[in-house]
């Protein structure tokens, strides 16, 4: 069922082991509520939402409990019917303490989600759709957590012709988007008209990697007659799910350095985000749970779960069970996922997966001794944006951060980790680059 004899893809990239077989066939299951759900006010890039409930107040599942603070912010909704226990600080994946609303569920509640004013894709104006997306609290569910309505509001003078629905899911272990496409194809198709209308784009392409042929078939079958939607199957390669790589793979366009996809007339929206829009907007509801993969060798009851936002990882791991030698837990896939420092961190809208590694997997990595760079050039062949990671690594070691940015395009690096993955000398290249990027940003901010 390949769409074309030529395999569309991007240049360079890597092939990590896929490790998806454990969970790809497992249907999405509803996850129970934790004794206390912790809803951070900042789950997205931008400004934190402003809490609009008080301690002791009763809330209904799906009810708005925090309003957006300006345009670069989204609303938050109660993940469970219950009572607001307190509003205070909770650990976040960033390592900082962030304000959050703690909600204790009512045991006897029916947990029927609240509904608001429905929005119809046919009758609503683009502005109304964009406002509704912000009101529904929707952010990029692929992991970036960028507020979706900000993306949909095109800059003045820009026009888009193609909307890419990103179902590549190129990270190993993750199968949540795969299951969403299989089980919620109708929601995805319901979401696309909202996105097309809000941005004035003409067509949508659902992009799926070839290890999910079943999802591609289901999506093709779900396309309503007359809709300008098509499905493209891409060969498996990491990091194909990165916006820039996907645009190049499908359309052959290159997003300019420092630019946005819309600069080449394109918008990318994650398939799960699209499904949530298709499900929530017609009911006027807000996002209060998301589908994610709980897996990895350190996890017992692996699976794809619909987890209420704000479920603490401690509760999640204890519910699914973990191996005694669990040594590392990270949110997202193993290539870009962030290791958690505290199990009191809650699941947020941007959590695509919770993966647990045991000493077996992490030991292999830790034992590798770092060698000097032997100039093998593997990293140059891996980098999807054609940087020179070897040279950047040398400069990083000498703390030449500004030179890395000025002469070697450091700031174009989106930290996919392919260079570190292939490096036979085990030099932590992307880790160096993260530090250097931060140093450059700090120097720039200080210079203003």
């Amino acid at each position, binding site marked *: 069922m390949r769409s074309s004899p030529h395999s569309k893809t991007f240049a360079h990239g890597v092939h990590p082991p896929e490790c998806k077989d454990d969970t790809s066939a497992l249907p999405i299951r509803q996850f129970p509520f934790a004794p206390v759900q912790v809803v951070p006010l900042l789950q997205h890039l931008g400004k934190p939402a402003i809490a609009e409930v008080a301690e002791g107040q009763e809330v209904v599942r799906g009810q708005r409990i925090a309003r957006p603070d300006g345009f670069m912010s989204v609303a938050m909704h109660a993940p469970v019917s219950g009572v607001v226990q307190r509003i205070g600080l909770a650990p976040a994946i960033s390592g900082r303490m962030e304000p959050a609303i703690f909600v204790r569920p009512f045991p006897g509640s029916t947990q029927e989600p609240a509904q608001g004013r429905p929005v119809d894709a046919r009758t609503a104006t683009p502005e109304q759709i964009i406002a509704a997306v912000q009101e529904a609290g929707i952010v990029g569910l692929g992991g970036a957590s960028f507020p979706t309505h900000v993306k949909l509001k095109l800059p003045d003078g820009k026009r888009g012709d193609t909307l890419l629905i990103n179902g590549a899911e190129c990270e190993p272990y993750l199968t949540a988007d795969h299951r969403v496409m299989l089980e919620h194809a109708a929601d995805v198709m319901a979401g696309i008209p909202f996105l097309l209308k809000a941005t004035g784009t003409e067509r949508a392409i659902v992009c799926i990697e070839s290890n999910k042929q079943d999802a591609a078939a289901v999506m093709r079958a779900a396309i309503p007659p007359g809709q300008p939607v098509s499905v493209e199957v891409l060969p498996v390669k990491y990091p194909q799910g990165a916006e820039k790589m996907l645009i190049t793979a499908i359309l052959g366009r290159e997003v300019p350095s420092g630019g946005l996809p819309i600069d080449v007339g394109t918008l990318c929206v994650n398939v799960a985000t699209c499904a949530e829009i298709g499900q929530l907007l017609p009911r006027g509801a807000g996002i209060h749970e998301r589908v994610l993969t709980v897996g990895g060798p350190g996890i017992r009851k692996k699976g794809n779960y619909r987890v209420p936002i704000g479920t603490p990882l401690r509760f999640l791991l204890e519910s699914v069970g973990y191996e005694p030698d669990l040594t590392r837990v990270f949110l997202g896939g*193993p290539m870009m*996922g*962030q290791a*958690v420092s505290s199990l009191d961190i809650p699941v947020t809208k941007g959590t695509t997966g919770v993966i647990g590694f045991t000493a077996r*997997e992490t030991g292999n990595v830790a034992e*590798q001794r770092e060698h000097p760079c032997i100039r093998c050039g*593997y990293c140059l062949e891996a980098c999807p944006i*054609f940087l020179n990671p070897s040279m950047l690594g040398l400069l990083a070691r000498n703390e030449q951060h500004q030179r890395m940015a000025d*002469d070697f395009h450091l700031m174009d690096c989106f930290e996919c980790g392919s260079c570190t993955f292939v490096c036979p000398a085990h030099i932590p290249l*992307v880790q160096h680059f993260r530090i250097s990027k931060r140093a450059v940003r700090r120097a720039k901010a200080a210079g203003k």
Partner: protein
Amino acid sequence: MSSFDKTLEIRSSPHILSGNSVSHIMLHVVLALLPVAAFACYAFGLTALLSLCGATLACVGTEHLLCRLNHKPTTVGDWSAAITGLLYGLTLPPGLPLWMIAIGGVIAIVLGKAVFGGLGQNPFNPALVGRAVLQAAFPVSMTTWPVAMAEGRFSGLPNSLLTLPFMTPRYDGVTAATPLSAWKFDHQLASTSDLALGFTGGSLGETCALLILLGGLYLAVRRMLNWRIPVAVLATVAAFTAILHWSDPARYAGPQFHLFSGGLMLGAWFMATDMVGSPMTHLGCAIYGVVIGVLTVLIRVWGGMPEGVMYAILLGNALVPLIDNLLQPRVYGTARKKKGVAA
């Protein structure tokens, strides 16, 4: 709720690695060289075995000693000193006194590698640095070639091999010119099949072109050498010598002679492809290969020496920083033209 009393590691992603490593790559280069070394032992007998072991021991021992002197963990385990030693040994003429072999091996590691900061820092191929010094210091011994397949090569050792340190070796066996010098000075052409199979005189490891090709192809398939380098070197030599041969067949030997004679195969597949001393981009590798090919033919045809692969590769190594600087990859989303950056 039961308490979760685990200590979790915090590491920055990626959490998985490809499993490749420097020692893994280096070990495979050694493996690819073993058939070549085995053939050397077959063609030159015990001399070859002792020479190769001596060269490898000298390099590995020096590397280990230097690490000890610097109070650093030994880097012998990365196999790179072993490659240097084995390659260096394979470029030596059979019957070279062991004391010369030892000096060259120490120099290869000290001057070729350690003074620059060790693995990854050496601009020149250490094995060739060692050989070049020997060539300058002992020009007669380095150009005296005992014949291959000599009688009694498995039962005795030539006198020259066991010469006392700092004594001039005496060659008791039959010596003969290598195919390249036979052509250069006497205009005698060796047959291509003899050259390819290794039944000619020459350095220990350069005689059997087919086994070198086999080892090189194995590494190329496993992506442990960049195939563009040997292909560019060999194609350039073939094209250049074909033009010369076509212009005057009596004066210039044909491409098949040049491809399979001397150290070209060993140099193109195992010396020029040393990752540390070769460019990082594919285009850079191709240019580097062409440069080495042109220099080889220039030295062989118009130079004073019959063989020029060693100097061609060393000169190619010297150009690598320039090539790398001029050929920075074009970054995604930037304009096609991109100037080199001042180093």
